[in-house]
Structure formats: structure tokens, C-alpha cells
């Protein structure tokens, strides 16, 4: 579904990406980890065509993102959801209007149905009661969750999350990962989750790719990664060796609760 081939990107004389190759199959969800400033956000922006590669290609569903234009690009983007690291909510609109916006502009649903969908989506991310606040009036974590609701409300086939849980407390963070997982089960989207939430995120992904020094340093299953002996990988998953035992014994780190329970907690 997503094929990244030899992606190279230079910023002001600094090569951030130096030949990244990565494939994500249809319905697969992978985690993308890596140090701060290693180019994870830049990589995601190439996948959606917001940035153009200096060399290499990004193929999404058989289409080359660097040459795709006009109607083809629009119709591909209609099937795609993107959670920006900073949220990128429209700050002149309320939370409700933000989440309703893609529905209003892209679908023919009537106001009643849109209202229902939006309230439902906001309840899922635990934002009931803040529908009519403006982005500047809610906390950073709430902005993140509102942005997540906006990205998920169109039921995308491809979902890219840029740090969905950063800035959230552990309880809400776990609930959000859980929400992403249940959405994946419902929609079976193809996804990339950029995250520092190691190893919690390992329970909901099929593979983990690690970006280091401008290339995909490791690309493996969570289990293999946990038992890796490579120093840089160990530094990342380091002290979580004991939780890998938990993982193998089948216990999920993200507690499975009903949605109502999560909302009570939030």
C-alpha cells in the first residue's frame, strides 16, 4: 500500500533522510520510532506529498506521490487521514466545527447526522463537554485528541499518526492507543504510527521500523526488536526487557476496557 524507495531529502545542506526504504502492506500498522529530530515527521510528510523528495520515490496505492496532481491527488487524499504533530486544528473554529469540517465539505450528510458522528467521535477521544471550546481554550493534550478525532472522522483507509500520545498522561495515552487499535480493527486501515511510546505501542502494531542516521536502521517485528542486541536499539527499548516477557505471555500492556469506562477515567 505504501512503498518508500530510496528517499533522500536535504534541508539547508543537511541530509535528513539518506535513502529511506520502507514498505507497509495493506491493512498493516507499523510503528516508526527514532530519536528526536531524526526525520520522522519529515518522512510522514513525504508519504502524503506535503514534501517532495530530492531523490527516491514514494508510492501510495500504486501512485507516485511526487508526480500526482489535481483530481488524482485529491481523490487519494480523501482516503487518507493525517494527525499532525502539532494538531493543526483550525483556530478560528470550535472543536466541534473542526471535526465537522471535513464531513461538511466532503460528504452530503445532513446536519443531524454530522452532529451525531462528531459527538460520537469526540466522545471516543474523551472530549465530551469541550465541543464548543476553541483550540486556544483547551490543553495541548486535548488539542491532540481533537485532531485525532478530526483525522478519524472520515474513516480513512490510510492513517498516519505523528505522535498521537505525546503530551498525554499515561492513562489517556493508553486509552488513545486503545482507540487507534479498535479503529484499526473496525476499519482495518493501513497505518504508520510515529511514537516514542515504547514499548506500549508494540501491542497494537505489526512491525516496528526505526529511523536512525537518515535510514531505516531496523525493521522487524516487536518481539524480535525487543530481543535485539544492537546497542542503539537496546538504548531505545532498553529497560523494557521485562515487559517483553509480559508481551510474550500474551498480556496486553494497554488495558482493554470498554469505551464508557475510559471516558469515566478521562
Amino acid at each position, binding site marked *: 500500500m505504501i512503498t518508500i524507495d530510496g528517499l533522500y531529502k536535504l534541508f539547508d545542506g543537511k541530509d535528513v533522510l539518506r535513502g529511506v526504504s520502507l514498505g507497509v502492506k495493506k491493512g498493516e500498522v507499523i510503528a516508526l520510532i527514532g530519536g528526536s529530530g531524526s526525520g520522522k515527521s519529515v518522512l510522514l*510528510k513525504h508519504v*502524503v506529498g506535503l514534501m517532495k523528495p530530492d531523490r527516491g520515490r514514494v508510492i501510495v496505492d500504486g501512485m507516485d506521490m511526487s508526480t500526482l496532481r489535481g483530481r488524482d491527488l485529491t481523490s487519494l*487524499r480523501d482516503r487518507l487521514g493525517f494527525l499532525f504533530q502539532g494538531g*493543526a486544528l483550525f*483556530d478560528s473554529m470550535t472543536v466541534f466545527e473542526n471535526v465537522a*469540517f471535513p464531513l461538511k*465539505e466532503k460528504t452530503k450528510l445532513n446536519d443531524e447526522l454530522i452532529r451525531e458522528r462528531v459527538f460520537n467521535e469526540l466522545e471516543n477521544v474523551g472530549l465530551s463537554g469541550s465541543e464548543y471550546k476553541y483550540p486556544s481554550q483547551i490543553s495541548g493534550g486535548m488539542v491532540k485528541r481533537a485532531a485525532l478525532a478530526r483525522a478519524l472522522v472520515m474513516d480513512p483507509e490510510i492513517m498516519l499518526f505523528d505522535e498521537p500520545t505525546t503530551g498525554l498522561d499515561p492513562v489517556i495515552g493508553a486509552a488513545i492507543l486503545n482507540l487507534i487499535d479498535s479503529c484499526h480493527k473496525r476499519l482495518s486501515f493501513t497505518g504508520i504510527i510515529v511514537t516514542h511510546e515504547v514499548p506500549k505501542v508494540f501491542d497494537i502494531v505489526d512491525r516496528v521500523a526505526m529511523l536512525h542516521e537518515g535510514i531505516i536502521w531496523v525493521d522487524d517485528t516487536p518481539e524480535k526488536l525487543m530481543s535485539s542486541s544492537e546497542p542503539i536499539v537496546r538504548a531505545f527499548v532498553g529497560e523494557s526487557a521485562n515487559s517483553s516477557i509480559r508481551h510474550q505471555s500474551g498480556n496486553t500492556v494497554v488495558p482493554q476496557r470498554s469505551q464508557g469506562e475510559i471516558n469515566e477515567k478521562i
Partner: protein
Amino acid sequence: MNYIRTLGAVSLVYLRRMGVMGLFLLKTFFYVFVPPLKFTRVLKQIRFIGLQSTSVILLTGGFAGMVLGFQGFYSLSRFGSDAFLGPMVGLSLIKELGPVLSALMVTGRAGSAITAEIGIMRISEQVDALELMGLNPYRYLIVPNLIAVVISMPLLTAMFDVIGILGGYLIGVKLLGVSAGTYFGEMASYVDMKDIMEGIYKSLSFGVIIIWVCCYKGFYTGIFTGFGAEGVSKATTQAVVMSSVLILLWDYVMTSLLF
């Protein structure tokens, strides 16, 4: 040798930016004629650019007319021709001062705000978010402004002219003693429809300049003009300076063409 190379590189950068700026205007015009039009946004921008500028236009127009009344009277009475105060005030306002001054006021009041708003949307990735939803940023952010300014600008200029003529009347007739019949009578016989059309053409083109420059500067904040809050403030300053200068340059070009 190095010197020439630098010169070449710098001119290439500016040439490229001019190209981008020209393309920006072409794209905006393209999306004006390609539906769907975001009608509620057009109304919102008419309210912002047009309606909310009226008070500042009335105020400056009134004072401009009053100053013209004074200056015109003293100049003309030296030649004993103060009877022509009406045409003098009317023609200067309708052909020059009305379009130019109201365009400068709109640049300062609405243009700067438009640059800042679009610039902030750009640096906080809201423009990217719009694009990723498969929605065209030109259609949502630029076109409504262009349509709104094309509707508002001639009306604001007309208001400026009318209140200016009344200001001139107040000074010339009420204060300095020119007769009301002479003031308006001579004005009516010397001001042609052609003069009024000239004013309208000017105000329309100034409006397009304002939106073109201000939206362009906002849209390319963080790409051509620095990052963050400083980038937005730079873009805003540049937008105001550039559109003011372009308005005066274009005014010269139009005047010499229409003369």
C-alpha cells in the same frame, strides 16, 4: 568573478519569486471561475474588508476633503478663480485621492490582518491540514478575499469621494463663503462620467493588488519569509510596504495610460 556569481544567484532567487507570485495570481483567478464558490466565506470577507472599513474610510475621506477645501481655496483665490473650488475638489478626489487613499487605508486595516491570519495558518500547518483533507487552500483562503475586495473597494472609494466632497463643501461653502450653487454647479459641469470610471477602474485594480500581495505574503510565510512569530510579523510588514508601493506605482501607470 565571485561577485558576479552572487549577483546572478540573487537575481535568480528574485526572478523565481516573481514567477511564483505571478502564478499565485493566475491560480487565484482560475479558482474564482471554477466552482464551487465558498459563498459564506465571501460574505464574511465582505463584512471584514468592506463593512468594517467604512468608519475609517469616512473619517479619512472627510478630513481629506476638508484639507482640499482649504488648500484649494487658498490656491485658487490667488488667481481669483475660487469659483472652481467644486471641480477641483471633485476631480482630485474622484480621479486620485479617493482610490489611492482608500486603497492605502484598506491595506493597513484589512490587508495586514489577512497576511497575519494566513501566515499563522501556514506556520501552524493549518494550510497543510486543509490540503490534506483534499480541499483547495486557494478556494478557501484566497478566492473569497479577492471577490470580497472587488465588491467592496469601489463602494468604499465612492463613500470616500462623497464624504470628501461634503468635507470640501463644509470648508469652502460654510466656512470660506463660496456659494453652494457654484460649488456643486461647477463640479457637475466639469466632472465627466469618464473621470468617475477612471476612479472605479483604479479602485478595482488597487483592490486586486492588495489581496494579491497580502495573500501571497501570508501564504508563503515560513517558505520565503522566516519562521515562527517573527516570520509572520516580517511577512505582514513586507505585505503592507509592498502593496502600498505597488498601489502608487500602478496609479502612475494607470494615470499616464488613461490621461
